[in-house]
């Protein structure tokens, strides 16, 4: 009897130890699926195995999560001139409002691990978040009378955080613009200027100049591959003063003697391209690396990807080959190597691509063609060391959701505001990669035009 009891205890102990060991093993393993309370959203699924990225403390609840949200998204909210910053709701006069919707915390609206609630924007959103405070908007804006309270942010008119392309005076300024502007405003890059102003570029060692093919400085003892040399010679690096040794002859830890590395990894790129790397690590392409996980691969994506590329691992070299750094390849084919969704596949048959091909043939002016990168890796002007340089945003998610973020940074370089708003509101048109005209029409420009007209008539009557 006693022995039977002891055996039970031993079995229980062994079982408990086995379960504890298994859980412990899974806890420290990269695959933590076992502990996931539910799939994460489109924006976080890449890093859902890095629990501590958001759950920085076991205790602390919303406050801890809020700090984690702001760590990654705080800066972009500031840059977007967030219309509803937290500080607006810490004011006691809004105490009644936060009682209804606690706008002090991102997780009040954007709940994670709830795929069944996640909406088209890739986040969960309550339907009544506008009406709670702006219930009497029709008093001030009669045009809003009888509009559904669920439609404010989903009809292409407003956004809770970012209204840089949607605010009233901006709409007014861009009334009646043509669908396609006569003058395109695509910014042109200048690598030489970029290197000059790049704080981390070793200008003394590698002054700005163009190299001939025979000026390469690889050690003479090394048998050099002619094809690689050609690729380098045709690259922007060779045309701007970056010789072989800049990337291959490296002092890895900053203390030792320089050593020739046959195949330097992407850490070498970071020596000069710090900002591009930062963008990459903030993007869906690089966010796994930023969290210390293995690199992102198309197989992990929730989007439709090309079967043959599924097991590639993403780094700088996935889009920029190691010697040629061909930005034209990176702008289209690098994307289409992996992305096989409807929108991506429709690109090659789109007008955008037609103009890109015409630009490459020299049939139209530079800056008139549209590649994948034109929209998803947009160029922007930035002041660096007192000079205005054109940079390429390497975080392709920066302007992606909600897609109105793309209006100013991309669409309006070539299209009128009204056309841009309508086009981005038409899901079917997006799937066709903008081949055709928008079938949807967002009335915000009509509304503001009507409002100004009414005010003008009223003003005339007063006078």
């Amino acid at each position, binding site marked *: 009897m006693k022995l039977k009891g002891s055996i039970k205890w031993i079995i229980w102990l062994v079982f408990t130890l086995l379960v504890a060991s298994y859980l412990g093993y899974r806890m420290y393993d990269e695959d933590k699926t076992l502990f996931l309370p539910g799939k994460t959203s489109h924006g976080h699924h890449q890093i859902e195995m890095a629990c501590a990225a958001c759950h920085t403390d076991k205790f602390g609840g919303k406050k801890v999560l809020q700090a984690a949200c702001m760590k990654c998204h705080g800066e972009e909210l500031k840059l977007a001139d967030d219309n509803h910053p*937290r500080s607006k709701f810490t*004011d*006691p*006069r809004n*105490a009644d409002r*936060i009682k209804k919707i606690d706008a002090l915390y991102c997780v009040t609206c954007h709940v994670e691990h709830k795929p069944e609630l996640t909406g088209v924007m890739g986040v969960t959103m309550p339907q009544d978040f506008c009406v709670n405070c702006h219930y009497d908007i029709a008093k001030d804006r009669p045009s809003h009378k009888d509009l559904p309270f669920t439609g404010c942010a989903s009809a292409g008119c407003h956004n809770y955080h970012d209204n840089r392309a949607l*605010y009233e005076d901006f709409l007014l300024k861009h009334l009646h613009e043509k669908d396609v502007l006569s003058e395109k405003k695509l910014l042109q890059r200048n690598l030489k200027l970029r290197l000059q102003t790049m704080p981390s570029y070793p200008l003394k060692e590698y002054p700005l100049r163009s190299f001939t093919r025979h000026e390469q400085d690889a050690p003479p003892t090394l048998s050099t591959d002619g094809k690689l040399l050609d690729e380098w010679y045709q690259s922007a690096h060779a045309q701007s003063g970056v010789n072989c040794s800049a990337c291959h002859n490296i002092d890895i830890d900053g203390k030792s003697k320089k050593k020739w590395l046959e195949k330097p990894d992407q850490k070498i790129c970071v020596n000069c391209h710090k900002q591009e790397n930062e963008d990459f690590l903030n993007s869906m392409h690089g966010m796994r690396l930023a969290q210390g996980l293995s690199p992102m691969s198309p197989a992990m994506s929730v989007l439709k990807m090309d079967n043959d590329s599924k097991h590639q691992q993403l780094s700088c070299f996935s889009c920029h080959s190691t010697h040629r750094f061909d930005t034209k390849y990176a702008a289209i084919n690098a994307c289409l190597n992996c992305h096989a969704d409807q929108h991506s596949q429709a690109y090659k048959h789109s007008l955008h691509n037609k103009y890109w091909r015409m630009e490459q043939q020299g049939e139209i002016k530079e800056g008139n063609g549209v590649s994948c990168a034109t929209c998803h890796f947009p160029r922007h002007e930035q002041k660096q060391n007192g000079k205005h340089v054109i940079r390429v945003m390497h975080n392709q998610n920066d302007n992606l959701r909600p897609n109105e973020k793309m209006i100013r940074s991309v669409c309006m370089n070539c299209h009128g505001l009204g056309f841009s708003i309508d086009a981005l509101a038409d899901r079917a048109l997006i799937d066709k990669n903008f081949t055709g005209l928008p079938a949807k029409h967002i009335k915000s420009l009509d509304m503001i035009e009507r409002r100004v007209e009414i005010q003008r008539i009223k003003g005339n009557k007063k006078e």
Partner: protein
Amino acid sequence: MHYSKLLVSGLAALSILLSACEGKKSTGIEPKDMADALHLVMESDRTVYTRKIINRLSLDEQIIKASEHWKDDKALVLPAQMFRYGAEMAAEKGANFSYSLLSLWPINKQNKPKTEIESIGLKFIVDNPGENYYGEEELGGTKYFTAVYPDIAVATACIKCHNKHKNSPRSDFNMKDVMGGVVIRIPLKD
């Protein structure tokens, strides 16, 4: 920039003073004195910014315009925005008081009176020129000492902008009119 730094550091110093005083009730500063001191700093800085930056540069010397969309228009920040940004920055830094600029005729409708004290106070300062309004109210379960101070048209730029703005409910402001009020709230301990 200097204005903003000055305002925030002034408010922070007063905030520290208030926290220090909270612990020693017998020698602590009265909420009214605290609110008056805060307002003195705010009103002075606000007047300096409106007269010496906005009015001088945008109207007198016409060097740069002031715009609500200052980033897009590469213009000066409006005095009301400067005031709000300072209030938001102080809130972000965890100030134990809050302040805002409200009006019975706000351009931004979110700045109309919302609580009973705000309505009474804003009307009081319009009806009683030169006087402030003080009261207590409970918001979100916390009791506050609330002070309302008149915000007066101190420069042509104030009335010019408010009288012609398409969202302004009033277009007949004159110099020295009370255009709105600064509302300061200080939480009271039970």
